Each structure stands twice: as structure tokens, then as C-alpha cells.
């Protein structure tokens, strides 16, 4: 496969899964310039790791792993960038209408996610995205029983 073919295949897969990119960035960054920086870092890492992607594995599982690993590292790192306004043409994801802006309840949920530590954020995001326990366990590298326990704990703490 030529580099162009590979780039084209990569872009197609990324386009199909762009929602993952959007949600991971929203879970780990509060402000828009940081989200854009994170989105670009994730795309760069996805591309540089794409050669190691095994097509027998679901692309979404692999993408969640890369995106969450980059997001957690980004979140823990000291950032040296100065804040600036980013034009649409510099953005990885462009909102075509206002519906991409999360409604009130979803914003409240993002605030709940922000209060969790880095790994529990990933767990909750994967659960909300409809992944089953087996998929969540595969992305995070923990047992399914452990996933179930943690999800129940999160449900209980949110009820309170």
C-alpha cells in the first residue's frame, strides 16, 4: 500500500470515528484552544501509530486507546503554549452548525466527568459511548469484573 493510499484510508477511518476525537477532547480540556491542541496531538499520534494498527482489531477500540493515552498525557503535562484564537481553517474538526455545542444536560455531565481522575474519566466516557464491559476492559487494560464494579460505583456516587 502506498503512503497516499494509507493516508486516504486513515482519513476515511478518522472521518467515520470523528465523534470519538470530539468527546475525548471535551472530557480532558475545559477551554477551546487546549481542545484544539489536544485534537491535533491525537491526530498526529493516530497517524504515526497507524502503521502498527492491526485491522483484525476494531478501529474504534484502537482509536480510543490512542486518543485516551494522548489525552491523559496531555492533561498531565505542563503546557507552554500561549492562549490564542484559532481560525476554523486551522481546526481538525469544524462544527457545521450549532448542534455540536453540547446541550445543558450534557454540559453538566461533562462537568461531572471533569471532577473524576484521568482514568475514571476514560471509563465513564467509554460507558456513555455505549461500549460493553468487554470493550471497555480491552481499551483500559483491566478485567471486565473490575469495569462492572467501577461502573456500579460511579452510578451509586452519581445517585447521591
Amino acid at each position, binding site marked *: 500500500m502506498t503512503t497516499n493510499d494509507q493516508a486516504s484510508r486513515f*482519513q476515511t477511518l*478518522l*472521518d467515520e470515528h*470523528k*465523534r470519538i476525537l*470530539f*468527546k475525548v477532547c471535551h472530557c480532558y480540556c475545559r477551554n477551546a484552544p487546549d481542545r484544539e491542541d489536544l485534537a*491535533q496531538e491525537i*491526530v*498526529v*499520534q493516530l*497517524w*504515526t*501509530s497507524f502503521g*502498527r*494498527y492491526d485491522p483484525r482489531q476494531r478501529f474504534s477500540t*484502537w482509536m480510543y*486507546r*490512542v486518543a*485516551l*493515552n*494522548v489525552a*491523559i*498525557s496531555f492533561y*498531565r503535562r*505542563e503546557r507552554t503554549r500561549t492562549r490564542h484564537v484559532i481560525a476554523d*481553517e486551522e*481546526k*481538525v*474538526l*469544524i*462544527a*457545521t452548525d450549532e*448542534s*455540536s455545542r453540547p*446541550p445543558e*444536560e*450534557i454540559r453538566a*455531565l461533562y462537568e461531572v466527568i471533569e471532577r473524576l*481522575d*484521568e*482514568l*475514571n474519566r476514560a471509563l465513564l466516557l467509554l*460507558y*456513555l*459511548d*455505549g461500549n460493553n464491559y468487554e470493550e471497555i476492559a*480491552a*481499551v*483500559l*487494560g*483491566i478485567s471486565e*469484573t*473490575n469495569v462492572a*464494579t467501577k461502573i456500579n460505583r*460511579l*452510578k451509586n456516587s*452519581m*445517585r*447521591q
Partner: protein
Amino acid sequence: MANLDELKAKWEEHDAMLSECLRLNRELLTAMKLNDAESAVRKTAVYAAFEAAGWLAIVVWLGGFAASHFQQLGVALSAAAADVMCIGMLVALIRRIAGSLRIDYGQPVSAIQKSVEELRMLRIRTTQWGVLFGTVLWLPWLAVAAQAVFGVDVYKIASPAWLVANGLFGVVLMAVTMWVSKKYGERMQSAPWMRRLMMDLAGTNWNAAVRFVEGVKEFEREQA
């Protein structure tokens, strides 16, 4: 707070809309990002290779210098001490490069996060030991530089009091560096690289890294 499963249903509704209202900027990816990503990786590899080559050159030069001045015991021992420090820095750098190359971000999150944090801990320890030995070994470095540049053996021309004073200066400099780092590290908001260096020296970043690794291990083993 509402039930998590109710919120999950709302989340799914919003998620379905995202596909429609988000567009991937393919122009940006094609024009810049993908090519840049590859060249950035290459640049990082070249930079690391140059850094390792630099340390190797210093190690070899100091080893040769120590051997060629074996009759001047003070200078030879100074060069040997400096060489040991540089060998340590070179080994740490090679371990970091090898560790970075092994990291595959497509692997499970908990394993990769532990690996990334352990590399960060190695970087912090290298910085701490580098600055610690760099300041404590101030006098040996001075002796090597004076001999190499001016052909002067400081251990022969300087008085014992001067040598002791300079030896102590290195120790005091190290202690002051640690104290300033602890006291002012977190306040250096305007100079992020300096802040990181000072927080490395103060041990703040080390403690945070240890806590994070412990947190990941607990996340992995936690059961009902």
C-alpha cells in the same frame, strides 16, 4: 444528580447529532498534519541521536583526559569523577530513548500510562542527579577545565583553604538550588520550562508521578 442511565440516553442523542454537525478538516490533514507528523518524529529521533552522540563524545574525551593525566592525581581523579557522571547521563538518555521507542499508544491505557509515567520519573531523576552532581562536582569540573584550557593544575597552584572553600561552595550551591526550587518552583508561571526544572529538583514532580503510578496500579487491581 440524575440517574447515569438516563444521562446516557441523552448522551447517545447528542452523539448521534455529532456525526451530522462535525466535519473533519481533510484539507488541514492533507496539507500539513500528516507530513508534519512524520517529520516531527524524525526530528525528535535526530535530536536524541545528537544528544547521545554529544554525551558519548564527552565521556570518551574525559576518559582519555583522565588517562593522559594519570600523573597528576587530582586532575585525573577529577576527570574520572566527571566521566562517571557523564556515563550516568548517557546511560539514562539511552534508557529514555529505548523506552520511548517501545511505547505503543495503541496498547491498553493503564499499561501505557504506567510506562509513560515511568519514563517521566527517569527524566526527573536524571535531572535531579545531573544538577546535584553538576553543582557538587563544581571543583573537579573547574580543575579539568583549567588543565584543558590553560594547562594549569589548580590542585598545585591553589592553597588548601581555597580548595576547601570551593569544595564547600559546590555543596552550598546545591543546597541553595534545592531550597530555591522548593520555595519558588510553583510560582514560576511565566517561565514554564524553569518551573518544570525547579519542580523536578524540588521533588514535586517526582511525588506527583509516584502518586499517579500508584493510582494506575490501584485502578487496575481494584475489585468489589
